[in-house]
């Protein structure tokens, strides 16, 4: 932990160093930096070894399993299975529910983050507590809360019936509405935090400047504000989408048969059908989708940074 004391002194360019001493100083500095490297390697070793054994290797063996034929040899037929019939439908359902959830989380998160970024620090802090605390409460428990809330005689339906809303009580459990509501509430803290961080960094004088030059509110929003928060919105949307793809608890508990997501299918193949190869293939497909999303994030970041640099020069 005390690696810092091995830090080489910052080189002082232009300092009057006796010519005879430079060589020795140079060697000393190199020796120190080598010690610092060794110290780093030594300390990084535990976590790297741990994750290689318990994280990388297991995923690698999942990959191998997904490529193994029933009578030995290599095959792609588990992937063909996974991309066919009802399995393919599950994959599309997963993409659809993830898209719906990220869109809803983005809209709601945008509104809340926009409101919070206008508040005084004290109030903003209080509101962020309400956003952050649920994030640390088990998603399972929160899902259970939604099941009680959205039931046929739950609080929401009772309130709607009392208000004489036509059509109440609504069926909100064991269908897509329930899944999207539940999953959105789990994902919302992420989008709010990401968007809040972006909005706090925005120079509020820019919209004011635009207004002073006669731009209308809609124009300011569209031409000034939105471009500034757009990278944050895209980021939050993709991240939310990735996290939804492999999500299990809420869809499994609040969805009906038509809301089966990939994670539920994997769990079912393993627990009920003992179908490990197929489950592994589905897992790898999920992994590839996640990698695709992460790659997209990187790409967008690179593009937006390039655009920013061009803007400056």
């Amino acid at each position, binding site marked *: 932990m005390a690696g810092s004391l091995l830090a080489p002194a910052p080189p002082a360019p232009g300092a009057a160093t006796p010519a005879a001493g430079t060589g020795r100083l140079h060697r000393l500095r190199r020796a120190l930096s080598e010690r610092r490297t060794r110290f780093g390697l030594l300390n990084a070793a535990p976590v790297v070894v741990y994750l290689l054994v318990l994280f990388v290797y297991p995923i690698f063996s999942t990959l191998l399993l997904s490529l193994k034929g029933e009578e030995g040899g290599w095959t792609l037929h588990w992937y063909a299975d996974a991309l066919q019939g009802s399995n393919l439908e599950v994959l599309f359902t997963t993409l659809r529910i993830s898209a719906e959830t990220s869109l809803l989380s983005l809209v709601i998160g945008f509104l809340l983050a926009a409101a919070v970024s206008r508040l005084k620090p004290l109030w903003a802090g209080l509101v962020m507590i309400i956003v952050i605390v649920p994030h640390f409460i088990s998603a399972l428990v929160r899902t*259970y809360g939604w099941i*009680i809330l959205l039931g046929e005689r739950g609080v929401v339906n*009772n309130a709607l019936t009392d208000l004489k809303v036509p059509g109440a009580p609504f069926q909100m459990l064991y269908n897509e509405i329930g899944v999207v509501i539940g999953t959105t509430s789990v994902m919302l803290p992420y989008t709010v935090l990401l968007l809040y961080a972006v909005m706090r960094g925005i120079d509020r004088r820019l919209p004011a400047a635009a207004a002073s030059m006669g731009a209308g509110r809609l124009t300011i929003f569209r031409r000034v504000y939105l471009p500034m928060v757009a990278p944050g919105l895209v980021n939050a949307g993709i*991240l939310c989408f990735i996290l939804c793809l492999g999500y299990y608890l809420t869809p499994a508990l609040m969805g009906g048969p038509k809301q089966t997501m990939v994670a539920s299918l994997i769990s079912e193949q393993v627990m009920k059908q003992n179908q490990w190869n197929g489950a592994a293939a589905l897992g790898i497909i999920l992994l590839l989708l996640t990698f695709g999303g992460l790659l997209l*994030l990187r790409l967008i970041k690179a593009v937006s940074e390039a655009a920013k640099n061009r803007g400056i020069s």
Partner: protein
Amino acid sequence: MIALRSTLAGRIFLTVASTVILLFLALPIVLIVVTSFGKDAFGAFPPDSWTLGWYKVLFADGSKWPAALSLSALIASLTTVFSLLLGITAATALVRSNLPLRSAVYGLVLAPLVIPQVVIALGLFLLFEPAAMLGSPIAIALGHTVLASPIAVMILMATLKGIDERLEDAAASMGANRLTVARRITLPLAMPGMIAAAVFSFITSFDEFFISQFLSSVDTTTLPVQVFNVLQFDVDPSVTAISAVLIAIAVLALVLVAAVRRLGGAEKQDGLLPTEPAVGLSTGSETS
């Protein structure tokens, strides 16, 4: 500061919208806590009459909850120890040394946070099944550490970055050896961060579901697995009480972290919240 003033209509809209959104976040949690004290477990809200009965049921003879609770606590404690050990060394390497391939190591450490948990769980099953370690609390804790250690590393990295290296250098220049510097200077200063890392590692493990389910056997079901099974098969009102207990534990843990930060004098130390990894990952950069 010169800023564009919002219209009255706009402000009213944002206020109403954010109130509804905050209710959306808080209501499921508040509802569980209130309902757990109601006589009629699934009935009217707020309940007509109050009782502590469901909590008594939790700890009655023959209840399966105490065993699940203590198993989860054991696994979470093991996870905390593993994750702190990995977190301290990894954060030291990443913040206080010249590490070759630093960004690769950093990426590896954060990866478990975005890789679907079902894939990690599947892989861990394949690892532990041949070793006949299914159902072993140690195996489950080793699995949970994969998820908890990135959070510990993030928190400890932020903590180490916040400690002035010159304090360590000063101690060293006055003759303290490396161990003394670590023990007398770095450790006390890093204490709030270490406690935060420990608490969040504990909660991560305590609430984890997927890995526990894949690695559990009939007699080792952790609390979340037990809750999930109850919710899926036989709904039993005592699950409301155990959910309220889980909420209380999480809130207590957060209060503990907040109190330690306040005592440690860190009025505003960013980066102690494990939501930061998500922010850091999505931007592909480090939160500093």
